[in-house]
């Protein structure tokens, strides 16, 4: 129990030195998961060349701005639509479409034509519960017009909500994982 001032000061000196001398860590540059950098919406008509709508943002949020390419569709035509999602921020790139497909009960795409675009989109796929997913769709154009086609992906939507199975987003809820607007012109 012989505790004197010097002893205590020594303890504090040791503490001080040990605190100041410990090495700091470098941050981890692990891959960013769940990132979707590329969206490709391919619209294939019964005859003729397919049209691809693309969203590309390889470095994810921030950094460089994304590049969005719309397209031109023919009037009064039916297209088969299919969506492909990828994460190209990592090498090799990841296929996110398969992930959505594996969790299709928890995901649903919504399509909305606005600003005067004369087109309708219907679902042509189903999840295990018989509800639509939207990875495959059918788009039918009307007369010549131009406007915006917005593609939205909701995570954990309420698929049994009123009108949700018909592609109405209002009662879907959930979080938005994707919301991309493509400029479309119908000629």
């Amino acid at each position: 129990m012989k505790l004197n001032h010097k002893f205590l000061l020594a303890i504090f000196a040791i503490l001080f030195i040990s605190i100041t001398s410990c090495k700091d860590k470098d941050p981890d540059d692990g891959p960013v998961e769940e990132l979707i950098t590329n969206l490709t919406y391919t619209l294939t008509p019964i005859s003729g060349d397919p049209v691809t709508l693309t969203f590309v943002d390889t470095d994810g949020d921030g950094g460089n701005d994304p590049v969005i390419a719309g397209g031109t569709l023919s009037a009064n035509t039916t297209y088969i639509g299919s969506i492909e999602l990828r994460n190209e921020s990592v090498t090799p790139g990841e296929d996110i479409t398969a992930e959505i497909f594996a969790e299709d009960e928890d995901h649903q795409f919504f399509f909305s034509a606005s600003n005067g675009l004369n087109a309708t989109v219907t679902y042509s796929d189903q999840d295990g519960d018989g509800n639509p997913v939207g990875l495959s769709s059918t788009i039918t154009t009307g007369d010549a017009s131009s406007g915006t086609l917005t593609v939205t992906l909701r995570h954990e939507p309420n698929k049994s909500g009123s009108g949700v199975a018909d592609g109405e987003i209002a009662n879907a809820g959930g979080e938005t994982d994707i919301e991309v607007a493509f400029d479309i012109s119908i000629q």
Partner: protein
Amino acid sequence: MPSKHIIFLILFFQNIAFGQNCNITITGYILDKGTNIPLEFSNVFLENTGAGAVTNEQGFFEIKNVCPDEYHIRVSHIGCHTEEHFAKIEKDTLIKFYMSHHSELLDEVVIHGSHEDNSTEVSQTVNRADITEEGNKNLSDLLENITGVSVIRNGSGISKPVIHGLFGNRVTILNNGITQSGQQWGNDHAPEIDPFVADHLSVVKGVGSLAYGGNSLGSVVLVEPDNIQEDPHLHGEVNYIFQTNGLGHTLNSSIEKNGKWAAWRLTGTFKKQGNSRTPNYFLTNTGKEENNFAFQLEKKLKKEWRTSLYYSLFNTKIGILRGSHIGNLTDLKQAIDRDEPFFTEDKFSYNIDAPRQEVTHHLLKFEAKYFLDEEKIIKFKYGGQLNNRDEFDIRRGAVSDKPALSLSLFSHNLETAYNGLIGDSHFLKTGIQFEMTDNNNNPGTGVSPLIPNYRSYQTSSYWIIQNDQKGNWLYELGARYSLKQLTVKQFTRTIPRKLEVLQHLFQNYAFSGGLKWKPNSHIKTNFNIGYMLRAPEVNEMYSFGLHQGVSGIEEGSRDLSSEKSVKALLSVDWNVKEKLFIQALGYYQNIQDYIFLQPQNEFRLTIRGAFPVFLYEQTNANISGLDFLLKYEPQRHWNIIAKYAIVRGYDLSNNIGLINIPSDNISSAITYTFEDGEKWKSSFITLNGSYVFQQNRITQEQDFLLPPDDYFLLGLQMGTSVEVGESNLKISLRAENILNQTYRDYLNRLRYFADENGVNFSLNFGWSF
């Protein structure tokens, strides 16, 4: 364990010959701690023998024919919580007991040896009785009982105190004398402290708070555990609270003993709550679990050394409203338009899923005080903290079990301080503080970190000199200097990512002056003025990313400079004929280079749509306000309390109101205290109401949604206590929002999504032995 808050017991031994015969007389006074008013009709009772006395008009009592022995003395007074003290009586003794009859008028008093640490600063406290009665709430909600303190929330489980319009980085919280070092930058990060460890909570409504570490721009919150009573017997208490809203259980227990080798205390708290309920629906995923533990050891070494060791563990798991987890601005707009949040379930549950927070906080403190003599003390203090925070989000690909944010923060504080008289008329407080913080993102979250890894060192020194108060005047002058070095390591945002290391150095200083004038026992005036700098925090300089709750991208600016604040504060305490007590406090603060989130005229396009961008910028701001408290005791059984607080904050460069400035609020309580019966004592009933005005000083451009409307809440509280042998059982019932009012609060970040809680009843049992 008897409740024995800031009570001190002063024994004056008179020179009477030592005798074994039972002719000792114990005399004394019972006074109110807050006002020094004598408490008439107080009861003093020696538990061992049953002898007792009642105080007269001067608060004086006398117990004759006492044998020399060790006594547990029980002191009670109408409207106060019964207290128990331990004393060894060997000769005629004069004892002064201080009780908190006017607890709302109490300020923070620190005792250094025989010197009462007078300060010119203004403070108010929440005492032990309130902590145990409302112990199911968290720290910040308890502090809200103090005038001028509001709370910023993220649902009912997460809250932070807002004092005089400032919060987060700008308010320092000291847990047991150590600057609380958690992830304070987040508005949704609550202080990691169990209020049950505290004997009392204080808010120092200061201008500079020079003696405290941290980065306060004025006010400081003190969480103060009590010293262990000098009682060789084992004492303890058990508190249990059940609440109907959320079917919550809170269990707390503590035991203490002044043992032969050392004095010790153990405290444990357990909380479990399920989903809260608004008047109309359950709030899905708003449960909470908490497990806390604390250990305190005190030992005197020889005569001059007093040492103490303290360890506390805080562990919590808090659910965040499921419907508040949104992906983009469209989702937010949709949520705002709904009456009821998405994912609302129609049944109660204790489940806590994602989104949720899991936080563990360890604090280890060692303190040694060396008494050079009665008036000169040297203190050594070490505080080490480890804070682990994991935040879980709803994630795709079955990784919801992996945290989206995982941070580990290590901090060390070292302090050496000296307090003592210089000359025979002045008192000096000085110290050197060293703080080191190391904050790291734990790898493997798969999410770009919101704030980078950093390490900071800060060395500070302060000097405060005051006159030794003898007359009516107390004055105080102080200065503080600190040097902070910050090193940040992060990867660049563009591909290919490169590691960058950035260094910053901040020199900050502060000056303050204070004046206290107390011409008589009925009036007290404090005036304080201070100038102080605050270095920008890491989040203000480097945060980068999407704020889930509010759907905005927040970006730091690395070239921010320190904030420079001038604050002046004037307070007047007026006691009118010992029936009416008035406390009025006004303050004005000007902050040059005030750091805030400025919405930009820019939307950033991401795959989830366009997000508004908020940048940390600097402006000149001023904040002013008024805290007003009135207590009226028309007669013995009745008392009425009214509180009123307003705060105004303006951005002077942009000529608009500051965001997150509390609404004006007024509250009132009327209490009837029953005469103590044979069996039932300290029985009371209180009706309280509070009215919160709409915060109408911000514009549509500053927020996604304008502040909600005014609201009025009504509450009721009643309680009683009964002596069972040598122990005491307290029972109380508290009802909040009895009218089951549907309302939203401006400072709750979930106001975009859901209503506040509906009616709640809490039943409280407190057993002390």
